[in-house]
């Protein structure tokens, strides 16, 4: 009797241990590059390039000082934030009513148009935009950058929210309609407040994708409106790469994205998987 119990205990323990090992096999490759970047961002150039590599040896803030003081990174943070926040807000203003109408009145053609916008490679628009904006003398202005980034945010907002609005029960709206409330009032006062989780998802994703976008800034922005990804990229186009500073800059650019993700984890997961589950 005791022997079998011991056997079960051992087998469930070893199963648990095996599972733990499997999870480690997933986690280590996922997390290691981040820890390695973080470690490198506190190292001197000599320590980074030494072979064999040594970890957790130096703790210099010199790399971060160079990034923020000499390269004036706060300005690029500001530029990226202005573009990301404005583009996201405008995307919401344009996209929420559109998504509602698409969901309620089954406007499949509009939905398809938005799908095409979502899947369109940025490069297909970059050339005509460049020609358009240079003719309007809008290159290196926030207007051009924000307009281009709305085309990142708007499809995300409409795509996420139209499937969200479809899940909002019609009964609430119908009883308000019977009471003579206008449809736009129902949308603003009833539908939007109960759709907060969906709106949080759309807002977070829209901002994240704008924050990470490199291609549009590459062509549409220069010194005045340079965004973070472009600033980080410019670091490595020098002849000799200052790896410590590059790693510090990389950590600086991904930290806000990671913090946002940590706060809104559930929403981000929903937003990224919604396309696959519901479309």
């Amino acid at each position: 009797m005791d022997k079998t119990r011991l056997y079960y205990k051992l087998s469930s323990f070893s199963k648990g241990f095996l599972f733990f090992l499997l999870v480690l096999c997933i986690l280590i490759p996922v997390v290691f590059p981040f820890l390695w970047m973080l470690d490198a961002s506190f190292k001197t150039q000599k320590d980074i390039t030494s072979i064999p590599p040594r970890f957790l040896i130096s703790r210099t803030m010199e790399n971060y000082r160079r990034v923020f003081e000499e390269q004036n990174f706060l300005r690029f943070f500001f530029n990226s934030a202005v573009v990301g926040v404005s583009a996201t807000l405008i995307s919401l203003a344009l996209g929420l009513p559109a998504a509602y109408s698409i969901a309620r009145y089954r406007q499949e053609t509009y939905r398809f148009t938005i799908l095409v916008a979502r899947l369109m490679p940025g490069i297909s628009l970059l050339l005509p935009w460049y020609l358009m904006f240079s003719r309007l003398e809008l290159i290196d202005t926030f207007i051009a950058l924000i307009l281009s980034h709305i085309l990142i945010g708007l499809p995300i907002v409409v795509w996420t929210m139209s499937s969200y609005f479809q899940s909002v029960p019609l009964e609430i709206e119908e009883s308000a309609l019977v009471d003579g409330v206008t449809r736009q009032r129902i949308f603003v006062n009833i539908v939007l407040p109960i759709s907060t989780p969906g709106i949080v998802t759309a807002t977070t994703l829209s901002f994240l994708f704008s924050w990470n976008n490199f291609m549009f800034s590459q062509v549409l922005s220069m010194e005045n409106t340079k965004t973070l990804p472009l600033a980080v990229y410019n670091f490595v186009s020098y002849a000799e790469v200052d790896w410590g500073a590059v790693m510090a800059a990389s950590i600086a650019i991904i930290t806000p994205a990671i913090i946002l993700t940590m706060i809104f984890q559930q929403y981000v997961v929903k937003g990224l998987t919604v396309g696959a589950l519901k479309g």
Partner: protein
Amino acid sequence: MLDSRFVDRHIRILFPLPALLFIAIMMVFPILYTFSLSFTTWNLASGMPPRFVGLNTYIEVLKEPRFWAAMGRTFYFTFLAVGCETILGMIWALILNREFFGKEGIKLLLLLPLVSTPVAIGIAWVLFYEPTIGLANWALKSLGLMPLKWIADQNTVIPSLVLVDIWQWTPMMTLIFLAGLASLSPEPYESARVDGANGWQIFWHITVPMVVPIILTGIVLRSIDAFKTYDIIYTMTNGGPGFASETLNIYAYNLSFNYFRFGHAAVVLFFLFLIVLSFSFLVNRLKDRGHG
């Protein structure tokens, strides 16, 4: 001010109108403009205005081996990356598909690669792959293997870039599959267990048929993104060495902003657009089937 009755009555036009106008100006018009450019030859460097040449530019592009090489490479990159991500994502999802302490924390960690700025990720991998000081070769040497040149070698550059894509996007596949597995209804499992089916039979006859639509949608969505991969390739190799990692995206960028051959770039963009449009129809079809 608009009369509120009027808005109420015409809401199905007025609500989507601003968004559609924006799409028309910022997407439809630019695409039509690009399309019209594709019938011209226009080289900014020559200082000449665009000249109408009919289908001539199309013929030139279709005769250009660099175009076909880029096209093949783009598909190769996409198939290799998405194939590995699907298999690996499936395995990861099956491992993680149970309740255990710390599951939410693990999901959070899985999100990190895909919310991180690709430019920063690409640069970190450049250092990782660095032949003399990079960790990758140090690890190979420690294992007694031959060091590689990774992204500096024409033969290994695409697989090396694919590895970065796999690192970044396998978590996405895992999360999609996990959400799919969580949405499965428990009844078929219960009746199968009553009928005495074993674990493998249950997986093969019940789980697989139910998750296939989710897997397919995941594959299509991921393929489109992989097809469009730009940031990672541009920052890591800029299409090099030589043209060994030049995908359609990079080729179109180079034609537009390095050679200023706008007519030729427009033709390449036209083909890119056609491919993406057919992908979009595919997504739409899959979605309809999911609803039906």
